């Protein structure tokens, strides 16, 4: 028996070896390396030089970095509640099960399977002031992506467009798990539609809401491809989200140490946000139907 156990353990370690190379070498090690790099100055040409906390000191006073955090926060706060509200509405509408509506789900997920970069390029054309579809439709020349006032709302709109269908699928899955009997009981009691939404649907969707919010926030703080295609962070840094800033700092300005320090800050911010969300959503309501 003991020999068999040893044999099984050996087999297990052998099976785990490749993935351990991946997790250790390309996920855990990079976290250590990025931490080390954040204490250095490196321009890719000369040798890296130890500078202690200088990069972090710079970040504390850098207006550009503060701007990026602000832009990312605004981007997230505008896009996620909108996408969640619309996604929930879509899910409720599809869940009514009207004839000929279930295939619409296919359409809503198309943006999810498409490359965000390619979609960003498509939207850059649609929003183009002279040749774009949107201005042709409304018959006015509007500088959607180059007007400093409009650029951020425009990229937020594209983000909502990209994510809303995907989000609605999760709500749809959540809605379908709510027992029909709960609704029937509420209706017999004469509850109005708004009351049912507030007192039954939303509380029972809490786990889905938690999952969607957490994953959306994490994705939103890393958004890069579509912004790269549409604005490259411009005009006047109005759409300079944190990932764009890290990319520019590292590969345009060739300040890898500074970029590494930004990445460390981003990591800490994301961990903090996840923990806070977990706390907020912990008090769950479940209606035991058994």
């Amino acid at each position, binding site marked *: 028996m003991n020999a068999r156990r040893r044999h099984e*353990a050996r087999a297990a370690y052998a099976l785990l070896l490749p993935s351990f190379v991946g997790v250790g070498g390309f996920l855990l090690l990079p976290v250590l390396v990025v931490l080390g790099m954040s204490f250095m100055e*490196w321009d890719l040409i000369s040798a890296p030089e130890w500078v202690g906390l200088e990069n972090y000191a710079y970040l504390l006073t850098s207006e550009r970095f503060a701007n990026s955090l602000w832009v990312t926060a605004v981007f997230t706060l505008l896009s996620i509640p909108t996408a969640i509200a619309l996604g929930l509405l879509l899910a409720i509408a599809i869940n009514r099960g009207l004839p000929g509506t279930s295939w619409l789900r296919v359409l809503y997920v*198309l943006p999810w399977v*498409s*490359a965000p970069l390619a979609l960003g*390029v498509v939207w850059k054309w649609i929003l183009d002031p002279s040749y774009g579809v949107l201005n042709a439709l409304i018959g006015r020349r509007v500088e959607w992506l180059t007007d400093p006032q409009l650029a951020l709302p425009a990229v937020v709109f594209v983000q909502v467009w990209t994510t809303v269908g995907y989000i609605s699928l999760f709500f749809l899955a959540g809605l379908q798990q*709510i027992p029909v009997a709960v609704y029937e009981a509420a209706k017999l009691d004469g509850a109005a539609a708004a009351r049912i939404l507030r007192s039954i649907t939303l509380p029972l969707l809490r786990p889905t809401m938690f999952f969607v919010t957490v994953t959306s926030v994490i994705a939103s*703080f890393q958004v890069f491809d579509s912004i790269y295609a549409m604005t490259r962070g411009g005009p006047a840094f109005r759409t300079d989200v944190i990932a764009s800033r890290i990319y520019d700092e590292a590969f345009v300005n060739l300040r890898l140490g500074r970029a590494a320090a930004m990445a460390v800050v981003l990591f800490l911010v994301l961990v903090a946000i996840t923990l806070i969300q977990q706390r907020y959503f912990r008090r769950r309501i479940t209606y035991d139907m058994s």
Partner: protein
Amino acid sequence: MATVTSPTRTRRTPSARASRLLANALTYAFLLAGAALMLGPFLFSLLTSLKTPRQFNTTWPVSLPDPVTTENFTSLFSEQYNFVVPIAVTAQVVLVLVFGQMLCSILAAYAFAQLDFPGRDTLFWVYVATLMIPAVVTIIPLYSMMTSLGLKNTFLGLVLPFLFGSPYAIFLLRENFRSTPADVLDAATIDGAGVWRRLWQIMVPMNKPILATLLLITVVTQWNNFLWPLIIAPAEEWNVITVATAALQTQYAGNWTLVMAATTIAIAPLVTLFVIFQKQITSSLGVTGVR
């Protein structure tokens, strides 16, 4: 699909029926508007890719191409733009990564789900914890690691960081492998099947649906990947399709018919794949919770 609305057929007053009709009409209007908004950009870009620059400049942007031209696609594949290269590179990257990720993830998930060994739970916890590490954070250290290995602008540089499985896939597969009935596996053990044979002759065949879903997700993720290829393989001969499209847009800004042909090439294969396998994907999304 189950409907949750009013399964009980109670007596209805005329006003209740009227409000129900109104609700249905509003639902249809909302869903159709949403569908049009979703489909529009795909349709417009496809239409534009089938127009000549002259047609594009002289007609309404949402008009149908008349006549349809494939000029943009043929010039993309000509020597000048050479879009054959990014398609070939992307296809190879996707192929190698799908194979590597699926294999390594299956092996790891099987070990975590079915085998007993010291340190199993701790190690699994470490794997799950790495799900928290955002890609943007690892991109700079990975770049410095890969370049110091001399892998900038190489195929290996493109694939190496993602080749050995993903913690997400391992997590997902482990959940499914664990629920495989133990008596089937026990029976096989009694018949003398070893660890390896139990995996390939029982575990994998019994979990085909989740494996198929994971395969599709891996194809989508890798085909659409942009930031890593942009950084590690900027040389033209190693451009993947997203990087080539971005470069084309920067270089030929304003040549929208050509650029829309490029986005169509980047988008169309996966949309086709998705439409074919849409049941598989939509039904599993709720379970898997990707991204």
